[in-house]
């Protein structure tokens, strides 16, 4: 019983970390229809920034949020405006090549500047363990869990209760009609891309005290993030959140019972089963890929 409880808690901790990484990816896809293959690299850049700012300014890693999140928001806007937007009338494949190319460029830029070294952001006590009943977790993991709930809830409120949020959803549902309302669709795409990247920036800051970062770190997260986005029903934020928790649980249980070498088999096995029986994802609706709520 204690073991079960401990596995569930650890699964949920891992799942909420995955959720934080995936939410921005699904938002960007849901609204702008761009598959952002560089998503993991934006996170890696965010973690690098967190490391640099923390060590050079000697501040608590969480305080870097005030630098990293706006920087990544701007970076997202720049990428949308100068890389994706100019390709809007070309084939979907071209956009995919563009984000894949961006991902490769970002990895190599970091390799060039920093080599393949691991960088450890000071943990500032966030790796200390905390007893939650029978389970043991890291303080930093609890913060991630709480923040992932705030992030999903905050995005939901933003999208449903603000004028900008409604304009974003309207654009996703009917681009032409949105223009006829006076919505500047290019601007909406830019803001959405910026928000999606800012979200992965938050994940990067919270993750940094717990995991070392190197040029390849983005790659190790992005595959699972894509699995989650597809499972959650492509573009659904709530769907991605639940899918991430499920994947976190599968990961924890499979890791314990099957061993770490086989747990990926379990994760992708579940993914394939979902795709076979619910091709539009667990929470998706085959007709509406742009469902954001």
């Amino acid at each position, binding site marked *: 019983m204690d073991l079960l409880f401990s596995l569930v808690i650890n699964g949920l901790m891992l799942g909420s970390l995955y959720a934080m990484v995936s939410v921005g990816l699904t938002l960007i896809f849901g609204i702008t229809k761009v598959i952002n293959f560089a998503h993991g690299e934006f996170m890696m850049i965010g973690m690098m920034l967190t490391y640099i700012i923390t060590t050079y300014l000697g501040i608590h890693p969480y305080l870097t949020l005030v630098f990293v999140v706006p920087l990544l928001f701007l970076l997202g806007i720049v990428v949308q405006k100068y890389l994706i937007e100019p390709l809007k009338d070309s084939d979907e494949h071209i956009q995919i090549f563009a984000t894949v190319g961006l991902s490769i460029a970002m990895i190599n830029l970091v390799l060039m500047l920093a080599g393949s070294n691991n960088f450890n952001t000071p943990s500032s006590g966030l790796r200390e363990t905390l007893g939650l009943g029978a389970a043991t977790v890291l303080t930093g993991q609890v913060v991630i869990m709480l923040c992932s709930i705030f992030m999903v809830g905050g995005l939901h409120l933003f999208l449903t209760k603000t*004028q900008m949020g409604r304009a974003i959803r309207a654009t996703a549902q009917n681009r032409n009609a949105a223009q006829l309302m006076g919505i500047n669709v290019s601007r909406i795409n830019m803001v959405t891309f910026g928000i999606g990247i800012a979200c992965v920036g938050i994940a990067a800051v919270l993750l940094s005290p717990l995991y070392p970062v190197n040029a390849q770190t983005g790659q190790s997260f992005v595959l699972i993030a894509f699995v989650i986005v597809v499972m959650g029903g492509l573009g659904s934020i709530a769907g991605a959140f639940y899918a991430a928790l499920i994947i976190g649980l599968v990961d924890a249980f499979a890791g314990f019972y099957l061993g770490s070498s086989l747990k990926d088999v379990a994760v992708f096995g579940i993914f394939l089963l979902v795709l076979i029986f619910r091709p539009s994802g667990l929470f998706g609706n085959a007709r509406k890929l*742009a469902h954001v709520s």
Partner: protein
Amino acid sequence: MLQLNNVTSGYGATTILHDLSLEVKEGEVVTIVGGNGAGKTTTLRTVSGLIETTSGSITFEGEDITHLPAHQVVDRGITLIPEARQLFSEMSVLENIQMGAYRTAAKSQYNQRLEEVLTLFPRVKERLQQRAESLSGGEQQMVAIARGMMACPKLLMFDEPSLGLAPIVVSQVFEVVKQIAKSGTTVLIVEQNVNQTLKVADRAYVIENGKIVMNGQAQELMGDDHIRKAYLGI
């Protein structure tokens, strides 16, 4: 108010409108009639900036709007209620109506306009919280009109507002068009229902193959032999 001067436009390499000129004066109700594929929708989409004008010019209130992007055309005060409604299907009726008032000039008049629109469409008022896609076709058309009105446009363009509606609802729609015109909004309307449209319109243009082939007072055109044969089936 609105002038199209020798406008040419189309889709990609296909030119649909050829040297098309027309004018809508302030306070008028003008209609464009023509058969399927004549270019009526294309004309309205060109004015709204959804389609690029390849040659010629469009002016509105004396200013050139030929190459403005669609959202800026809306800012100037031209709103199109598009063919086939084009609602935000997964949003509530109220949210659809709120989106209509996205234009800056509409925001200050939101409450007053909302009340006007809901008085005009009591059926819409009863369904504000429903998802747009769950409404009947006629109700959706009313929401589309209400949404367009929320922008408080100076020129309101309708693309086939009566398409697919039951005769009784069609009459309601024309009644609403009349009321909108009476309240001072200029109207440009495209309709298959030529008979009823000519009754509410001041002037009419006849379009064939992307060209204006005839124009005049709506009353006169109703008596014209060519019009009667081609569009009124008499």
